[in-house]
Structures are given as structure tokens and as C-alpha cells.
């Protein structure tokens, strides 16, 4: 397979124009660490943003950073940390999740890849997803035209919000070069309250109370006993199930919230300070450490109050399944043994009453070819027309999200 690595947007535009003229599809890659996420793309040529790399401008006091899409996340994280900032949506690093079939570079994922897949970590319900921090971009559409949208300031409503559309479009609408994101101060201190031994309904009640109270919780997860034992953070394993509640902020406020949560939620509990909290929430964010590397993984998004009930249903229905909850119950990470298949009907059928959707995060290629990876809502015809508005010849990552789009 040809791997093309344009250094400029003009060069990338030339590649896309030629592909459009010849009607030969292209697979768009950052570092390729998430190639296993989405449907397999049938393309003869790959285009990587690897040579379109580097931070172009960073103004911490204005909360904006502009970098080229191929910039490695590691570089971004370090540059922001030097100025006491971070990307508040807590982008997960899925490199380990897909290590089995990734052609990824050892330097890890890219900013463009994080935006194109609209990732979000445990802070999602409080701080938003990649979409909420994506301010503007330059790119090349499927016609090979160079265009831009959004801006380089944090507040902007000029024209359609195309960065939103790019976030989560998996490279099917445009190849991006310069991207501008919102940066925010990193909290000084983090504490995590661990509630031990709660069953699903009790954990749900505790998380609802914590998220509905004046505690400024920025992470709320539930690890059943078996998964809690797989954590490498201190005080997490060995106490039955763990309901974890994170508070962040200045020293005084995180200590205050932590004490209030322990007082108001009672039961057998413990608290983690910044270093241990970081270990635990990184595990929850990156997923891979909790599950066997071979199994099938679903990411299920539901109304938070329904999460524990739905998850318990899976545990009964599918033998050998495992799960944990994030986003206060609104996110179920569900693992199924490979030999039982993806069980898409069962998984998606369970959401019919409460609403929500399930994404097949990891599965063998033949499964992802057959089962819809994404549960697209609204109108497939409209999605098709949006695709054609950017890529009329269908040369950018065709079929990556939905067959034929």
C-alpha cells in the first residue's frame, strides 16, 4: 500500500485532487494508532498528517493553541503542562487499546486524530468532549480545495460551526492541517473519594447524589469488584466494588469537597490524593488496563441514571462479560468474550427504552465490516448529503463510519 506524507496543505490538496479525478479512495491517518476504531477502509493509498506537525502558536492567557494536525499529543501535553494548562476534555490515549492491530508510530497519537474521533475522558460531563474545545481549522475537502472554518479565538459564532462537524467525522469530510483548540488551567489539586462495596443501585444513588450536590465532582465511575482488583492505584483493589468520585481545584476547595462527600455519602470509604488519583483516572480514561486484550469492546452512552441497570442486564445476559461505568453512569465500557461475537442486537436492543447508543470500539476486522460500528441517529440520507457536500466523489475514508458514506 502507498503511504503518502504531504508536508503542506497544498501538497495534500494535490493528492486529494488527483484521487478525486481518478476516483480512487484515500485512507486518512494521523499516527494510525486508532485504525482499529471504525469500519475498515478499502483504499489503495494512505495519506498521513505525520509530516504536518508542530505547535504554531500558543497563548496561555488567551486559552488558545494552534498546532498542525499531525502534532503528537505528547508534545501538546508537555507544552501545556509547562504553562500549567491542559486540554480539559481529558483525551484518552487508546494506543494500548488497539496495539494488536495498529500500524502506529511509537510516539503515540496525534492532536488531529483525537479531534477527528471526538474523544473525551472522565471529565466529559463537566468539561465537554473534543468537539467543545475545537475552535477552528484549515483543511482540504474531498474536491481538493483548501478551506478554513471557525477561528483562533475562544468565542466565535461567525458562519457554520464546522469544527463541530469535523469532530467525530473520522476523516470522512476533510483532511485537517492547522487546528486551534481551547486550553484551560490544570487544577492544582485532585482528590478522589472511594466508596467501597456498593452494588449497582447503591452506586447509582451515590453518584447521582454526588453529581447533583454542591461538590463540583469532575469524575464519577463505578468499578465492580473484579475490575477494581485490576487497578494499579493504591487503595482501589481488595475492598469489593469501588465507586470513585473525583474533585479538583485549588487546595482548599478540593479538600473541602472531599470532606463533604465523605461526610454526606458515608459508608466504608477512603480518599486518594493527587498522585494516586492520577493513576486511577488515567486507567479509567484509557480503558485498556481493565480488560483482556483480545475481547470485544463496546462503548455505550445512556442517560446516567439508566447506566447501572443496563450494565447489570448485560452481565446476566452475556456470559463472561465485564463492564465498568464512567460519566456518573452515563458511559458503560462493556467487554464481551471474543467467542460470543459482538452481540450487537442484544447490546443495542437493551437501549431501546431508555435512549442512547452503542459504539463497537474494538472488534476483529471482519466483525467491524459486518456489524454497524456506529449507531447513526437522525437521517442516514441527511448524513449522506452532508458527506457529499464535502466529498462528492467519496474519496476521503469511504465507509469508515457507515457503509457507503
Amino acid at each position, binding site marked *: 500500500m502507498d503511504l503518502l506524507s504531504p508536508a503542506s496543505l497544498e501538497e495534500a490538496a494535490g493528492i486529494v485532487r488527483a484521487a478525486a479525478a481518478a476516483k480512487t479512495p484515500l485512507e486518512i491517518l494521523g499516527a494510525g494508532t486508532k485504525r482499529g476504531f471504525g469500519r475498515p477502509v478499502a483504499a489503495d493509498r494512505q495519506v498521513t498528517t505525520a509530516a504536518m506537525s508542530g505547535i504554531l502558536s500558543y497563548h496561555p492567557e488567551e486559552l488558545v493553541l494552534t498546532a498542525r494536525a499531525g502534532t503528537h499529543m505528547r508534545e501538546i501535553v508537555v507544552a501545556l503542562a509547562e504553562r500549567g494548562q491542559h486540554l480539559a476534555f481529558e483525551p484518552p490515549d487508546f494506543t494500548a487499546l488497539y496495539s494488536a492491530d495498529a500500524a502506529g508510530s511509537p510516539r503515540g497519537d496525534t492532536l488531529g486524530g483525537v479531534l477527528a474521533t471526538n474523544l473525551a475522558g472522565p471529565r466529559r460531563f463537566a468539561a465537554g468532549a473534543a468537539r467543545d474545545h475545537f475552535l477552528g481549522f484549515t483543511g482540504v475537502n474531498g474536491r481538493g480545495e483548501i478551506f478554513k472554518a471557525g477561528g483562533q479565538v475562544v468565542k466565535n459564532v461567525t458562519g457554520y460551526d464546522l469544527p463541530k462537524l469535523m469532530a467525530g467525522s473520522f476523516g470522512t469530510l476533510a483532511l485537517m492541517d492547522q487546528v486551534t483548540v481551547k486550553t*484551560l*488551567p490544570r487544577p492544582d489539586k485532585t482528590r478522589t473519594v472511594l466508596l467501597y462495596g456498593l452494588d449497582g443501585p447503591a452506586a447509582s444513588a451515590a453518584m447521582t447524589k454526588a*453529581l447533583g450536590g454542591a461538590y463540583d465532582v469532575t469524575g464519577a465511575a463505578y468499578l465492580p469488584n473484579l475490575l477494581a482488583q485490576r487497578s494499579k492505584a493504591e487503595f482501589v483493589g481488595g475492598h469489593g466494588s469501588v465507586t470513585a468520585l473525583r474533585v479538583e481545584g485549588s487546595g482548599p476547595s478540593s479538600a473541602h469537597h472531599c470532606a463533604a462527600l465523605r461526610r454526606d455519602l458515608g459508608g466504608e470509604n477512603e480518599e486518594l490524593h493527587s498522585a494516586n488519583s492520577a493513576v486511577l483516572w488515567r486507567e479509567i480514561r484509557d480503558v485498556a488496563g481493565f480488560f483482556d486484550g483480545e475481547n470485544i469492546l463496546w462503548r455505550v452512552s445512556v442517560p*446516567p441514571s439508566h447506566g447501572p441497570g443496563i450494565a447489570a442486564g448485560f452481565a446476566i445476559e452475556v456470559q463472561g462479560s465485564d463492564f465498568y461505568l464512567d460519566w456518573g453512569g452515563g458511559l458503560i465500557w462493556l467487554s464481551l468474550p471474543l467467542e460470543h461475537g459482538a452481540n450487537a442486537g442484544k447490546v443495542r436492543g437493551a437501549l431501546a427504552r431508555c435512549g442512547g447508543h452503542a459504539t463497537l470500539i474494538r472488534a476483529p476486522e471482519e466483525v467491524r465490516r459486518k456489524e454497524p460500528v*456506529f449507531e*447513526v*441517529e437522525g437521517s442516514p440520507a441527511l*448524513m449522506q448529503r452532508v458527506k457529499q*457536500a464535502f466529498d462528492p466523489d*467519496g474519496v476521503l475514508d469511504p465507509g469508515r463510519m457507515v457503509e457507503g458514506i
Partner: protein
Amino acid sequence: MQMPEPDQKTIAGKQQLAAALTQRLGTDGLITDAVALRAYETDGLTAYRQPPLFVALPRSTSEVATVLRFCAEHGLKVVPRGAGTSLSGGALPLADGVLLGLGKLNRILEIDIANRCAVVQPGVTNLAISHAAMAAGFYYAPDPSSQIACSIGGNVAENSGGVHCLKYGLTTNNLLGLEFVTIEGEVIRLGGKHLDPAGYDLMGVLTGSEGLLGVVTEVTVRLLRRPETAKALVAGFPSNEQAGAAVAAIIGAGIIPAGMEMMDRPAIHAAEDFVHAGYPLDAEALLIVELDGPTIECDHLLQKVEAICTANGATGLRVSRDEAERLKIWAGRKAAFPAVGRISPDYFCMDGTIPRRRLPEVLKRMAALSKQHGLRVANVFHAGDGNLHPLILYDANKPGELAAAEEFGADILKLCVEVGGVLTGEHGVGVEKRDLMPTMFSEIDLAQQQRLKCAFDPELLLNPGKVFPTLHRCAELGRMHVHGGSLPHPELPRF
């Protein structure tokens, strides 16, 4: 302001069209009387007026779908309208277009505290959502200054902000779900009480689309816990540079205040004369910083903010000791627009965003432009996010002043773009900034946005004449491409 040429055939056929729609909506679903139509001839941008062909007032999603289907069948233009508070002329009617008022869809359908969200119809006012959630200790965060009147449907269409959006985000960051109706009358639901639906983020792109892509008929918003306390600090500065430096230092210190507002000398004086908020009249710039959250955090951060302001030359610094004092500090800022209205018969409220580090330079050049155009200007500024609201003072009754004010405004917005900013931070493009779009976007940029429009509204019937300076026909934009003589997916509907 030039609008698309009205279609005389449509205007001539008004009676038959109205009769046909009355059959579908009932007599109280349609307003055709010339006097009654005057109530709808303008929105918050009162410089422009145009009565619509007639006004349709549907009561349900299915009636909205009926109206839109009817309009699509008859090639009728549609201008959606919430509460009509747009400051950019987003709801300015068309002489040959139906004004689609969403005011009758005004029910709060559900307050779901367990899932921290509310499901409401588009005609519900922004503030009513917070009121409905108040008993449970929750509120809806985005707070545009018109929140007592503006509707949530209009907030979605404009992606409205407010003084607290630095910390809590714009409308788009506080939405969980939408139901909208396409121009063909198809009802589409996006999202719900769960997060991050799969597929293209149509909710994200509908938000802020200014009524050009579809008509929103239901909104699910996230609710936040009311902060335990809020405290405000006010300080005067001897120069705009020093006030700007204080703002940069506050954010540089890792503090994101709930609100951070700046006013320049003319705005300080207008506000102080009007409401006597106790602002220092000898200051060149005024800064209001509000912190919210637990008391312990507010006090901790306020100390830091105070030190930063003092280090940057602040004078007359004051921190609210109770709620009454906090409201008094805000009173001047919140009354800034009417205060300016008191000293001038008319004013334009502009809305650009700039990189904040360019503020001193922008204010200097704005002062020069003020001299050049012979019109006064006062500035209020959402300092945290660089969103500038210059208020241009003019008198519409003096010949030429409206045109001069428009030119002055255009020059200010061009300046915003020139220094790396944008034309509008929260008010929308509408008709007001439509013709300036080419200063920020190339032909290709605009064509790409319009191709997206074509994916939703191929006949360009939804709110034409807004946002885009040129109406390209969709066929001309080459939306449809043929693969080897046949269209892909022949089962899909085509236009």
C-alpha cells in the same frame, strides 16, 4: 441593507396561500392583517424593518412540519423567529416570506434532576428554564443579557453566550439533544439525555446556524447545580493596557472567573450617571471579576485576583461583602446598553472578538475611527474571552448618521478580523454582518459552508438573505456528482 428580490408572484398570491395554510392551522394559527403584521416587522436590530407576507404560529412539532412542507411545496421562503431579540437581524422578515413564530411551543416538558437535564419546547424563555429548575437547586448556565425574553430555540439558532460563558460555555456546550424539522417537513431527533451521539455532529452544526438549516422544535439542555456563592470584585485602572494586563495575569494564574467584564471610560461614565453603581470616574478602564463556587474557593481566589489587580495599578478596588453589593457592582455593567441609550437617540451594539493581547491597539484605532466617522463609541468587553461590544452612538433622524454608523461598525469589525479575531462572538451574522463575511472567509470557505446549507435546504428557502452575501444556487455549487453515469445510493431521495 439589500435583501433578496421579493417574488412578485408570491406576493400577488398571498390570499390563496394564506387560505390554504389557514385550512391546515386554523384561523388562530395565521396572522395576515397588515396592522397585526407590524408587530413582527423587526427584531432586536431595529434599524431594519420589513413586514412579512404573513405570520404562521404553529402549536406543535407536527404543525411546524405542516407549515414547512407547505412552504417547500410552494417554493415559499421561511424566516423562523423565537422571541425576536436577535441583535443581528436574524429574524428580519421577508416581504415574500412566511414568518414562522415558535412562540406557541412554550411548554417545559420535563425537568429530570436524576439526569441533570431539562426537555423544553423552543418558545420557552432562557430564564424560565432556570426558574423551573430552581426549586431543585439547579439552573441553565448560558445567560444572554436578554434572558428574560429570549427563547431557547433562538438561543440554539444563534448559539447565544452571555457574561458567564467563559467558565460555563456557549449554548452549544450546554445542549444534549434537539428535535428539528427540515424544510421538507421531516422530523429529526438528535441526541437526548445521553452524550456524544454517533455520526456527524448535526446538533453541533445546527446550533448557531441562524435558522438556515432547520427549525428546532424541542431542546434538551443540561442543568447545573447552582453555585453555593458568588462574589464580585470591581476595580478601576489608569489605562486599558493595565486592565488588559490584569486580565491576562488572572487567567495566567490559572483562574477562570465566572465572569470578567471590562468597560472603557465612556461606558463607565454613561453607566455611572445612569445607575450610580459607585464606579470610579477617574479610571480609564473598569474591571469586574466574578467568582462563584464554594465560599472557601471564592475567598481563596479573590485574594489572588485582588493581588493581581493591585500589582497592575488598580485603584478603588472593592469586593462585594453580600449579595446586595454584588448586584450593585453588576448594576452598572448590566445597564450599560440602556445607559448609552440615555445619552444618544440610537446606538448600534457591535460584537467582534479579538485576541485580547491586541486590545490596547484595537481601542486606540477605534478612537481614531470614531473621529474619522464623527460618531462617539463606548466599549463594554467580555474580557475573559476577548469578545468586544462597541456601542456606536448615532441619531437616525439626522440625515446620513445611520449610514455613517453602519460604516463605522463595519470598520470596527474589519479591524477585529485584521488583528486575528472574528466578526461575531455571540450575536450572529444575520443581515448585520452578512456583507462582511468575505473579509474573514474566502470564496472557497463560503462555498463550502453553502454546500452544507444545500445538504439541508437545496432550494434555499430557509432564512435566505441572512449570513451569506451571495445566494449561490445549489446546482451551481456542484453539490451532486455522478459516478460513472449513476448516482451512488439510488434508494436515497434526491432533489
